């Protein structure tokens, strides 16, 4: 930025005013403003990273007395830890299913609500409520809903099927994934919906009308006009939700605690169990570092993809 010190920048990035007599002193001022925030971020952002690296080369567990440095031991263990890679796989399964479903369902809902509907604002305000519920509370609530005997889900299915139903949603291996995904999708589809509704209402109406007059099909209009217009918002929404899903913990914790066995263990739950229940301190540090590296690589790749697609 070739900007004169002391000048204020507007939203267009251009300097809008000449430097004042105090211009000389603004350097100290503007650094003083950011310094405390940067200090706190370094404290909680960078310190842990450094500390993780140090601990990961040691050998701290609950039982071992010798906590000396062990070189790459913990990193070698990572490669052969089947449970770790399964946890990663479970996480990716959740992302691979929940993310597209939330996106498509949210987009469909946004398409519905972009049209004229009486009392639309009220509907939208109500539909957003799931996003505001704490995920752990949402998970707890769904575990009550999925209860085999006293929950409403089995009763509704019973009505539809015409016979008494007592499915063990949070215990049967074939049902745990659907149960968790239902809770997850229930909570976060409204997030997608809200963002995409905002994006859709920003689409140029005159272009849509022109397309209608030209006799363009709905699908063609959607693909050629609507989708390019809302693409940036889709990218942001997918990125935010993708990151959230990668750290998925609360809903699974409330519904299954990673069970049955380790069937629904996500990477966050695995790390929690290793670090805070089995106290394999050094190994957990190595796992945490692995997560950070993998996620950084994924985000970097995603950002590149988005840039290319633009």
């Amino acid at each position, binding site marked *: 930025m070739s900007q004169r010190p002391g000048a204020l*920048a507007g939203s267009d990035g251009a300097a809008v005013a000449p430097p004042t007599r105090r211009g000389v002193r603004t350097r100290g001022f503007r650094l003083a403003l950011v310094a405390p925030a940067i200090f706190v971020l370094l404290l909680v952002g960078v310190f842990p990273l450094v500390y993780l690296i140090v601990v990961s080369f040691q050998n701290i567990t609950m039982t071992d007395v010798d906590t000396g440095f062990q070189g790459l031991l913990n990193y070698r263990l990572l490669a052969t830890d089947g449970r770790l890679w399964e946890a990663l796989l479970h996480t990716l399964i959740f992302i691979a299913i929940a993310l597209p479903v939330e996106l498509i369902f949210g987009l469909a809902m946004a398409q519905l609500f972009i049209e004229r509907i009486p009392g639309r604002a009220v509907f939208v305000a109500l539909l957003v*409520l799931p996003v505001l*519920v704490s995920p*752990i509370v949402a998970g707890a*609530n769904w575990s009550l809903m999925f209860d085999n005997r006293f929950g409403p889900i089995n009763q509704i299915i019973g009505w539809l099927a015409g016979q008494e139903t007592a499915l063990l949603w949070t215990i049967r291996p074939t049902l745990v994934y659907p149960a968790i995904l239902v809770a997850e999708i229930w909570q976060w589809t409204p997030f997608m919906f809200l963002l995409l509704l905002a994006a859709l209402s920003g689409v140029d109406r005159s272009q849509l009308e022109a397309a209608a007059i030209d006799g363009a099909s709905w699908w063609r209009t959607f693909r050629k006009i609507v989708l390019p217009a809302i693409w940036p*918002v889709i990218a942001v929404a997918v990125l935010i939700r993708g990151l959230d899903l990668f*750290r998925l913990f609360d809903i699974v914790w409330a519904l299954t605690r990673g069970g049955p066995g380790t069937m629904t263990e996500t990477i966050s739950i695995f790390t929690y169990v290793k670090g805070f229940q089995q106290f394999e301190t050094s190994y957990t540090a190595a796992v945490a570092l692995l997560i950070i590296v993998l996620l950084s690589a994924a985000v970097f790749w995603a950002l590149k993809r988005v840039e290319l697609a633009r």
Partner: protein
Amino acid sequence: MKIRARRRLALVLRTGAAVALTLAFLFPIYWLFMISFKTPDEIFAYPPKWWPGQINFANYAVLFKDGDATTVWNSLVIAGVSTLVSMFLGSLAAYSLARFRTGGEHLANWIISQRMVPPIAIVFPIFLLYVWLGWVDTYVGLILLYSAFNLPYVIWMMRGFILDIPPALEEAALVDGYTRWQVLWKVVFPMCRAGLFATAIFTFVFAWNEFLFALVLTRTEVATYTVQVTHYFGGQSNFWAKISAMSVLGTLPVFVVVAFMQRYLVRGISLGAVKG
């Protein structure tokens, strides 16, 4: 005539779909609230009862009598104070980033990237540090962590809000002899009051609803309501009444507060990326 009839039909269909969708999404929340008003007999009735026989506050009374409700107070203290801290530090930094382009794009990008680190990777080393400092299960520990965790969000949001206001007024105030600090407090922050308020609300809600940090860093003294809810889980004997009543105590305030913030909802939950 035919087109009109078709349009009417479309409107009716749309409205019907909207009603059905809204009911489907609200049903779990209805169920949660409804259980909290049931008696134990009604909760464990088969087939399940879809509405309570009468509104009954006994489940809430138990929480207050046993002192479990103080966890809501803990949530309030931790979320409240950490919001104030991160708003104060974040708004100052945001002003510097927005108006002086301090650190350029790199600093701004680094700050937002701090938000992307998975909480489990942060909380583990923080826990080890807090054990050493004796900060586990203290207000200070959680407040510091939440303040830091929310800081990137505050900076990012407030940077956007500050860029939205024209800098001309600040220049005028400087010419009038205001100091930089006075400009900040008497011109800039008052002008983005609504943005400050909206950012603070969402910062508060993030901290209020957070579970993992609180699970790891609290024991009994400063447990938050989200941790308390999970204390009622266990084997076959889930304390359903307590789970639901505790959840409602924690959820209702958020609903009420955000109802006044509808205008900023989209911008708030999209990390400022969508203006809404």
